[in-house]
Each structure stands twice: as C-alpha cells, then as structure tokens.
C-alpha cells in the first residue's frame, strides 16, 4: 500500500476509488451489512482519538469508552428534548472535549501508568454513575431512541441514511486528523512520545501537548458516541465499560499504532472479528477472538497496516544472500532482545 500510493496521481486515484466505494456500498448492501459498515465508521472515530493520544503521543489511555458513552448519552438526551441533530453533534464534541481537557489538566503532569490509572478510573466511575443518574441516562435500562430517520426526499432507507451520516462525519474526522498529525502539532506529539525531556529542550511543553492530545481524543470519543447512537439507536451503561476501552486499545494496536490507515483497519477488526467468530461458533466467540488477536500480533506486530510491507519483505527475502554473508539460518543462537541495540 505504501509503495503503491507513493506517487501523487496514484494516491488521488486510490482516494477516488475509495470515495466511490464508500458512496455506492450502502445502495447495494443489505441493512445488516450497512449496520456493520456504519459500526466500523463509529469505532474508527473512537479509535482515531485513541490513536492520537496513544499511538502518536505515547500516553496510555484506558478511558476512551467513557467519552464514547458520554457522547452517546448526550445525543440520547438531545433526542429526548428534540434538539436538532446538528446541535447534538456539536455538544457531543464540545462537552466530552471539555471533560477530557479538565481531566488532562489535572492528570497530564503524570506519566506512564499513573496517567493510565486516571484514565482507567473514567469508565470505572462512569458506569455506576450512568446507572445512578436515571433522570439523565435512563439508568440500567439505558435509552432507546428512534431518530435520524431518512428524510422522505432522499428516497433512502433509514440504514442507508444513517450510514451516510456517520461516514461523512468519519471522513471529515479522518481528514482533519490526517492534517493534524502531519503538521506542527503532530511533530510535537511525536517529540513528546519520544522523550519528554528532549521536548522541553526543544521548546515543546509536554504538559500542554498531552492536554491537547487528550482533549482531541475525548472530542473524537464524544463524536463517536453521537455516531454510535445514530447507528445503534440505543445506549446503556454497557457502552462505556472498561472492557470496551481495553478492546479499543487492542483494536488500535492491531490496526497499526500511529497510523491513520491502521486506525480504519483496527475499527474493521473491532467490528468484524466478533461477528465472524460468532458465525463460526457463537458459544466460542471469546476463544476465537483471542486466538485471532494473538495470531495477528504474532504475524504482524506492527499491525494490519504493515501487511503490504511485510509481504514485500517476505518476497524480497527469497533471493540468495551474497556469498559469505551470514544468513539468519546459519545463526545457531537466538538473537537477544536487541531491537533497541544500536548499530555501529
């Protein structure tokens, strides 16, 4: 993929093909397929946020599900009070962003696992809170809504309309994120990930960078919550459990850390693997999902996004190495953990 899209015309051609596929897909697919595709868009945005804070900035977050849930509840509250969907969308972005920023302002001085702990607390506290605040959230029952029906004039079915809504949001989010990570801010993310002390010496404040990354991640989490309610039409405390967060982290790494394309692949993985595993044997979903997850990690430690590169390097390895050069097979011992070793 990387080599194929290296040239600009090819890249543009690829994007056009992608756009056409995204536009046409719902028109020829069943409502069930459209639901799955829409779900991929939902979780792609959630994982995109996670990737910005974890993949690009290197700060572990175990709380992304809390922002997903918060967004979904805000949207549900909006449906109940007849807000226009655009207002809901704006609030689903702004409120979680503010909450995320406040948490980050307090926590971003911490590093590593202490920071992870604070993010871990968000879903842990969030779930019982969602159960308790029945007036706002509908309690344990959650909220069933019926909104974002297809306008008559479009002639679309509800599943198709909702697909377009969430895919448009996802495409916008991905385009913005793509520009963000390639710009000045993206460079400061990378420096903070590499070494906070070095960042300081280069005039980049690790604290402010981390707060910014968390805020963006929370914003995208909230937006994905809006999308979630659009697609699923239901939310409950289950939406924001800790294990959702954990699975999002797994999906992010599986797709490809610090990679925009990897984010989309991770979302597809997140949505499709349980479905596929359920089809193989519904009582063994966990067993099969776990095995697939492990298999992907073994084969592609850099994520699904590295598949083309990996295939290319396997093909390249075929030719005989130069005479006299040590090949991996002559080595009689296992290389020690030396991936960090410096080559002289």
């Amino acid at each position, binding site marked *: 993929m990387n080599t194929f899209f290296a040239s600009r015309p090819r890249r543009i051609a690829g994007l056009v093909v992608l756009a056409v596929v995204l536009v046409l897909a719902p028109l020829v697919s069943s409502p069930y397929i459209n639901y799955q595709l829409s779900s991929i868009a939902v979780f792609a945005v959630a994982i995109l946020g996670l990737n910005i804070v974890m993949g690009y900035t290197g700060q572990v977050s175990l709380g992304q599900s809390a922002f997903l849930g918060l967004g979904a509840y805000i949207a549900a509250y909006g449906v109940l009070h007849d807000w226009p969907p655009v207002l809901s969308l704006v609030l689903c972005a702004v409120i979680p962003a503010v909450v995320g920023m406040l948490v980050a302002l307090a926590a971003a001085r911490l590093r590593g696992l202490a920071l992870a702990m604070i993010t871990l607390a968000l879903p842990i506290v969030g779930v019982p809170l969602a159960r308790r605040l029945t007036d706002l959230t509908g309690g344990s029952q959650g909220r069933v809504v019926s909104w974002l029906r297809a306008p008559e004039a479009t002639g679309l079915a509800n599943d198709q309309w909702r697909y377009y809504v969430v895919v448009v949001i996802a495409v916008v989010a991905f385009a913005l994120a793509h520009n963000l990570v390639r710009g000045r801010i993206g460079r400061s993310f990378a420096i903070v990930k590499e070494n906070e002390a070095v960042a300081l010496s280069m005039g980049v404040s690790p604290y402010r960078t981390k707060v910014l990354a968390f805020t963006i991640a929370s914003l995208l989490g909230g937006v994905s919550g809006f999308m979630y309610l659009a697609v699923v039409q239901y939310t409950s405390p289950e939406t924001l459990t800790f294990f959702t967060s954990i699975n999002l982290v797994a999906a992010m790494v599986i797709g490809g850390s610090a990679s925009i394309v990897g984010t989309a692949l991770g979302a597809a993985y997140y949505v499709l693997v349980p479905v596929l595993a359920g089809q193989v044997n519904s009582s063994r979903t966990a067993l099969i999902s776990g095995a697939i997850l492990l298999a992907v990690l073994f084969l592609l430690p850099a994520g699904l996004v590295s598949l083309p590169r990996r295939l290319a390097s396997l093909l390249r390895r075929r030719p005989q*190495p*130069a005479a*006299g*050069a*040590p090949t*991996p097979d*002559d*080595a*009689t*011992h*296992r*290389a*020690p953990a*030396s991936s960090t*070793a*410096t*080559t*002289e």
Partner: protein
Amino acid sequence: MSLLELEDVTAAYGHAQVLHGISFSLPENGATGLLGANGAGKTTTLRAISGMVRTTGRILFEGRDISGLGPDRTAHLGIAHVPEGRGTIGQLSVRDNLLVGAYQRRDRKQIATDVDYVLDLFPNLQQRVKSNAAALSGGEQQMLAVARAFMAKPRVILLDEASLGLAPSTARRVYDAIVRLRHEAQVSMVVVEQNANLAFSVVDDATVLETGRVALSGSRDELMGMDAVRRAYLGG
C-alpha cells in the same frame, strides 16, 4: 595459547553486513585495543564476542569455539562486556548493581571483599552506594559499569567506549582505575576507544579496523610510531 582468538569473523544486522572477516588474538593477561572510525565495526566486534550478534567464523575462548553462545552463556565462561552506553541497571542501587555483577558466583565472603575493593578503586561510588544507578552522573555510571563487570571475576573484560560523553578529567580517572584493575586483578581486556591516548594507556597492542576489516595491527609502540595512526587517532 591465546585467551581469546577471532578467526575470520563476520557479522550482520539484518541484511547489513558490518564485519567482513575480522581476526585478532588476545594473549593470557594481555590487553588489546580496537581502534577505528565510527562505523568501523569496533562495537560489533565486541558484541560478536559476547554473543549479542549472529556471526560466522570462529571465536575461540580458552581454545573452545564460543560462537553461537548467547550473552548469558559467554558471561558464564568469564567474558564481561561493558557495553556502549554503560548498561547499568538504573532502578537498582549501586550495591545491587555490583551484586548483579557477581550473580554467578557462590563465594559470598570473597564477593564482599571484592565489593570493598571496587568501592576503594572508585571512591565516588563509595559515597553513593545506596543511590539508584540512574541518579548517578555519567562518569559515576561508567565507573559502576566497569566495577560491575569486574564483580563477575571475569577472565576478560570487553570495554566499549568508556570515555564516551565524559569530561576529559573524568575519562582520565576512569582509565586510571582501569589500568589499576588490569594489573592488580590480572584481568585481560579488549578495549574499544575513540580516544587512542586513553586506549594506549591500557593496552599492549592494538588492531585498527576500517569498514569491518582489519587495516593493520601491531604493538603499542609500533602503532604510536606510525604517522598515519598518529594523525588519525592521536591528534597529530
């Protein structure tokens, strides 16, 4: 018989071959230097000896071919590698680092004596014996790295760029201690060093590497007498 002998050793990282057939030998109770520019293969040669890279050719230690053994095995045989970047264990105290160095030994009393000996050799460490290694200065960390290698009671110490990043006076102090160690503890050494003046204060002879091959070798006095060597490594 030499203590350590390399015969036509090659090594590569992935597809990048770094050593193209290195040979040299280290006599019992000897000290030999490896000189050369950045990228000449000095560090890789040390890594090849201690088993941290894949190699071809023969690496004989006390007459036995040790190529293919991992670093924990070569350490067991009596090869102590002080890696580039010092390799102290940051979250352990100075004393614990020394004890890790002595991990393979069973002679408790002698270990305690040796701890006292290295703390006497490096008085800076004496004062910071309970500090975490990560909190030490660069020079102190280098001293600790050398001390930790000695604690294994090795036959040979592989010393990689012990002066790197140190102030000249600190580097001098580290090397003074290394010279003392060599003579008092009767330990052989392979010394990789950018600063040939420091290297020549320890070694009897040296091998000059260029892009993974042996360019020349000779005794200390021979090499110091050569104009090319003086210009390249001794600052005129």
